[in-house]
């Protein structure tokens, strides 16, 4: 099942023995989406749709959108219209999560989604099935947390690039298989010898980001990404489902209370204290704030977010991402940013 947002309740899919697959882009130039998306829609939603139009997700049996922003919704709608796929479903995930009505409302929407999944798989999902789905996701999240713990020390035991491979692969691979691999990794991490300098400890925060070439570049010029706030990273896995008798309600509550996407982070900004806590816990020295070009929800957050960093004495660098990232242009900006932390030897 192709998932168009990290708000799709994977627990319900796993309960139905369906493999959730996050639909991401390829970071390659393309020329197939122009008829379907406005020019000022973000490069990520454009890249996502291009993959569908080019047949790169032809193995999908269905697609699901959980409402987040208008841009990715348009990609979903265009996909539904122009790419052959047997099943599709649009979950009316509320943007107003900061209200008591949010969880009961989402519960009813997830009940409807459960019925859709039952139709897809041709059988009823029992409480046992849901428990299995919840357990698989919770175990996976817990293991990712454990791996992230190894990034907190003076010498992070894995790079930001490796962490990105871990989280993004977790969005595609069977949860139990992914968890089994992480358990093997966790056995080896304590004894791992890191033969690189940690350099400046960075947080990367912002729009969807699975750009491994970018993270690799950043970590090649004297820095380590020690933590992130992305929907392909911590925002996706940070909190677990607190199990209760009403499984669907518990799942809905988890998605309402997770670290929010900025589309849902109002009227208060719940995300900022959470990000500052990440900075504290992971001993972050600087932040790279990234935004997919034209990503309005994140764009609205940039000014107050950078102000929040300023007030916490955490220098930040802003970069605007496109389908293809100009590594050379970004490299000079990142290097100059890192020089701000360590140029005392130059004076």
């Amino acid at each position: 099942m192709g998932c168009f947002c990290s708000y799709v309740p994977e627990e319900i899919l796993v309960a139905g023995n369906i493999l959730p697959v996050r639909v991401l882009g390829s970071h390659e130039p393309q020329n197939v989406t122009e008829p379907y998306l406005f020019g000022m829609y973000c490069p990520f939603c454009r890249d996502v749709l291009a993959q569908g139009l080019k047949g790169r997700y032809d193995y999908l049996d269905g697609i699901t959108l959980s409402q987040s922003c208008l841009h990715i919704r348009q990609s979903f709608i265009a996909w539904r219209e122009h790419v052959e796929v047997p099943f599709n479903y649009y979950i009316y995930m509320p943007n107003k999560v900061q209200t008591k009505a949010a969880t009961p409302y989402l519960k009813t929407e997830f009940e409807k989604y459960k019925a859709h999944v039952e139709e897809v798989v041709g059988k009823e999902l029992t409480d046992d099935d849901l428990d299995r789905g919840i357990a698989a996701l919770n175990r996976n999240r817990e293991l990712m947390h454990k791996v992230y713990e190894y990034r907190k020390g003076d010498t992070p035991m894995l790079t930001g690039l490796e962490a990105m491979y871990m989280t993004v692969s977790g969005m595609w691979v069977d949860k139990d298989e992914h968890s089994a691999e992480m358990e093997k990794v966790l056995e080896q991490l304590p004894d791992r010898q890191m033969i690189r300098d940690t350099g400046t400890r960075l947080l990367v925060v912002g729009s969807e980001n699975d750009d491994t070439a970018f993270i690799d570049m950043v970590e090649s010029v004297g820095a380590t990404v020690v933590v992130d706030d992305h929907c392909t990273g911590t925002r996706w896995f940070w909190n677990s489902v607190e199990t209760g008798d009403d499984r669907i309600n518990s799942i809905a509550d988890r998605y309402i209370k997770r670290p929010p996407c900025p589309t849902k982070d109002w009227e208060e900004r719940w995300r900022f204290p959470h990000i500052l806590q990440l900075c504290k816990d992971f001993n972050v020295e600087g932040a790279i704030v990234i935004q997919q070009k034209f990503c309005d929800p994140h764009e609205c957050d940039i000014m107050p977010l950078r102000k929040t960093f300023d007030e916490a004495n955490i220098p930040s660098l802003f970069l605007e991402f496109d389908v293809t990232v100009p590594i050379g242009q970004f490299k000079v900006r990142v290097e100059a940013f890192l020089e701000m932390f360590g140029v005392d030897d130059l004076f």
Partner: protein
Amino acid sequence: MAEKEFWRWKEYNWHDENIDWHGCDAITAGVDVGSVSSQAVILVDGKLYAFATTRTGSDSPKSAQKAMDWALEDTGMTLDDIHYKVGTGYGRVNVPFADRAITEIACHARGGNFMYGNSVRTILDMGGQDCKAIHCDERGKVTNFLMNDKCAAGTGRGMEVFANLLSVPIEDIGELSFQVEKEPEPVSSTCVVFAKTEASALLRKGWPKNKVIAAYCNAMAHRVVTLLERIGVEKDFAITGGIGKNIGVVRRIEKELGITALKADGDTQTAGALGAALFGKALLEKSRK
């Protein structure tokens, strides 16, 4: 017959004949391989001794070598006499003889601090293909910066294209831009190609060249002021890079900002290489401790 190259700015070298470098304690050099121009600066015990400024070719290592060779010309000094060499600019990692590479952002801040004095807090580097607005402290250490994105408007290369279009030597553009009865509206300030198309239309419409030049200088100034406003301008303010020599753009920036830029004591185009050479001196001293 070859077409006249109106864009060609002055390539030259210089050295101070009053300095005897023999037996000096610290000889350091900075080489700035930019997208359009390359500079080499040699310092002798922290004093400016020699420099060269030349066009960057298609090969960064050769451009670095050419600038360095030219700075060394007639000095009796060889590359081996230089104790520490720093590469900067977009080709910084391709300076074959460099001991270290440092970004042009840090180097322009440090070079601007040396060139304009330690009261400088905002430096606008108007380079060949990008613009940088840099905040720095009293030592010339970068405290914040912003670069233009995805567009060469407001850069030296844009001005070169314009000089050729109008068949006006690039060094005359600044003066000529003020020889207009009334300041015209700016042409497109977001794209060099659109600006060129717009200027061609204005010429066909009968606008005198000076008026078109004024419209372009105005556009370039407006473009970089929007960049500066995003980061804020803290006094004192100075401009480095090749466009720093173009009074048509500089004065319009000053007018739009309501701030007078500090006057340079030296060639603004060499600020990056100068900063690199100054960092070279600090690194040399650290390495000897």
